[in-house]
C-alpha cells in the first residue's frame, strides 16, 4: 500500500514509538542525505547525542519481512526544527541508508526514540569543546543548539579526510582557519581541518588548545571514528573530562539484546552503546580492549 497514511504502528503504548512523517529529504554533498521528520515525541524529549532507531521500510509493511534491512538503523538526532521537526543526517553507505535516502516527502517512517544517553552538561561547565570527525558531524548542530544556549562558549573542532566528504560547505579565507559557516551560525567558534588540505588531524587541533582550557569549567565532547576517539582519550587522560559518543551494530536499541556492547573500564564487564551510551565519559570505557 504505497503512500499510505498514518496508521499508528503496532499498537505500541510507548510515546517513544511513532510514525513520523517525512517533511523533507535533501541530498547533500559527500553522499549525505538530510531527512526532516515530524516527530513531536522526539523533539520534546531529545538531548544532544541521543539517537532514533528507524525501520527503513513503510510502517504499514512491518508485518512482512524484508530481505534486507530487517533490523532498525540507529541515527543521531542531527538538529531540532521547532516545534516538532527532527533532522537526521545520514551518509549513504549500505542498504538501509540507501532506502531511507530514497523515501519521498510525505511518506511515514516508523521511528523509536529518543534513545540512549546524550552528552551531559555539568552545572559548572562554561566552555564546551566539541571535537567531531567525519560522519561524527551529524549530531553536532543539535549539540551546538543545546550548548550555546546554556554555556558561555562553544568551540567546534571539526575534521574530515577531505572537504568533499563533508555535507557542509567549507569556507577558507587567507590567514584564518577554515570554517564551516552553517555550523558557526548556530553559535560555535569553528575550526576545520581536512587531511588533504591542512594535512592535520582534528585530534592535533585539540592537543594544541589543551593548555588553554580549564579542567574545572571546560569539557571536551567528541564524536567520530574510533581512532580519533582513542587518540583524544589518550590526550585528555587524567587532565580533562572527556565525553565520547560510540557506535556499535545494534539489534534492539533498547539495552535488551546485548548486541552493541563495549568493554567497560576496570573490568566491569560490558556496557551497551544503545542504553548505557552512546555517550560515555572516557573513563568509563576500557580503551585497551575496545576494538578498533
Amino acid at each position: 500500500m504505497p503512500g499510505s497514511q498514518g496508521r499508528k504502528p503496532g499498537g505500541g503504548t510507548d510515546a517513544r514509538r511513532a510514525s513520523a512523517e517525512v517533511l523533507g529529504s535533501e541530498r547533500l554533498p559527500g553522499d549525505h542525505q538530510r531527512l526532516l521528520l515530524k516527530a513531536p515525541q522526539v523533539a520534546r524529549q531529545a538531548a544532544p547525542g541521543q539517537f532514533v532507531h528507524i525501520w527503513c521500510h513503510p510502517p504499514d509493511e512491518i508485518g512482512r519481512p524484508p530481505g534486507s534491512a530487517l533490523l532498525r538503523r540507529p541515527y543521531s538526532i542531527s538538529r531540532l526544527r521547532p516545534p516538532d521537526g527532527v533532522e537526521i543526517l545520514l551518509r549513504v553507505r549500505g542498504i538501509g541508508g540507501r532506502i531511507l535516502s530514497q523515501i519521498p516527502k510525505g511518506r511515514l517512517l516508523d521511528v523509536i526514540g529518543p534513545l540512549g544517553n546524550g552528552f551531559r552538561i555539568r552545572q559548572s561547565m562554561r566552555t564546551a569543546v566539541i571535537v567531531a570527525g567525519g560522519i561524527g558531524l551529524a549530531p553536532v548542530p543539535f549539540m551546538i543548539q543545546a550548548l550555546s544556549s546554556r554555556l558561555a562558549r562553544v568551540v567546534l573542532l571539526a575534521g574530515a579526510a577531505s572537504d568533499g566528504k563533508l555535507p557542509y560547505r567549507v569556507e577558507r579565507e587567507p590567514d584564518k582557519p577554515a570554517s564551516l559557516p552553517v555550523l558557526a551560525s548556530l553559535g560555535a567558534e569553528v575550526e576545520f581541518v581536512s587531511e588533504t588540505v591542512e594535512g592535520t588531524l582534528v585530534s592535533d587541533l585539540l592537543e594544541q588548545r589543551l593548555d588553554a582550557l580549564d579542567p574545572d569549567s571546560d569539557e571536551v565532547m567528541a564524536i567520530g571514528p574510533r581512532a580519533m576517539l582513542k587518540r583524544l582519550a589518550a590526550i585528555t587522560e587524567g587532565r580533562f573530562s572527556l565525553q565520547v559518543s560510540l557506535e556499535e551494530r545494534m539489534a534492539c536499541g533498547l539495552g535488551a539484546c546485548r548486541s552493541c556492547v563495549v568493554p567497560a573500564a576496570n573490568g566491569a564487564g560490558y556496557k551497551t552503546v544503545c542504553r548505557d551510551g552512546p555517550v560515555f565519559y572516557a573513563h568509563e570505557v576500557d580503551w585497551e580492549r575496545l576494538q578498533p
Partner: protein
Amino acid sequence: MSGPDLSVKIGAMAMNNPVMVASGIFGYGDEFRGLADYGELGALVLKTITREPRLGNPPACRTAETPAGIVNAIGLENVGLDAFLAEKLPAAMEYETNIVASIAGETPEEFADCARALDQTEVAAIELNISCPNVKKGGMAFGVDPEASAEVVAAVRAAAAKPIVAKLTPNVTDISSVAVACETAGADGVSLTNTFSAMVVDVERRCPLLAAGMGGLSGPAIRPAAVYRVYQVAQAVAIPVVGMGGIWNANDALEFILAGASAVAVGTVLYADPAAGNRVLAGIREYLDRHGLAKVSELVGSVSIPHTSG
C-alpha cells in the same frame, strides 16, 4: 473480551493465549517496557541465565544481518543467578502474565542449581536452553544428544516442581529423538527451534564478521525449516510444543500451530516491531473468527503429510 478460546496449558502453566516472547530477545523484560502491552501475551521468556554471571562473546560485532535473518553471537552474556533473583526477576514479575525463566549450564548440576532456586520464585515455568555447550562432551551442545538432553531434564525434574520446557536446537540429524528423550525424562513441554549455526564473512576485511566467528541464524529465513522441525517433533511427543523461528505475522504463527505447536514465540521480529506479539495475537484471533473456530486448540497439528513419496 469474548471470542474464541485461546487458552493453552503447558504442564501447570496456564496461558491466556498461545503467543509468547522467545528467550534472549527481550533481555530481562524491563528494557522493552512500554513499547507494547507485553502483559497481554501468554508468557514472556526471559534471557537465559547461568549459575555464575557470564561475559558472553567478545564485542564488535555480535549481531549481523543476513537475507531475511540475523546471525547473533551474544554468547549467553548474563548477570548470573543471584543478580537475576535479586534485581531482574522482581522487575519482570510486574508484567501481568506468565514469566518463564530460561537457564543454561555446563553440567546438569548447574542446571539443577538454577532450577532449585527458581522453584522458590514466582516464575510460571523454567525453560532449559540445552543448546549450550556440555563440558563433559568437549563442548558439544547437550541438545544434539538425546541422552545428554535427558540427563539435564532429569536433573532439573528432580530439583524443581515447576513446569519444565526443554528448548531444542535444530542443529541435529533427528530432532524428534531429542524431543522424545526430554519427554521421557520428565519435560512438560518442548520449545523449538533455537537458532541454526551460521557464519557471516566480512569479505573486505577477510575475517568472520562476528567476533566469535560463528553464531546462530534466526528470523524469517529459518521459518520453513523450523516449521518442519515442529511438525516432526509434534508427531513424536505428546507434550505441548512451543513453535518458533522466524515468526513475523499471524500467518507465520498459524503455520506453526497447524504443524503441531500448541503455543508460539516471537523473537527476532521484536527488533523491527516491538509490538509484533500483539499483532500476531490479534491476527490469530481474527483468523479463528473468520474460520468460525471456537478454540485455537482445534487447529493444533491439524495438517498432515501425505504418505506417498516420489
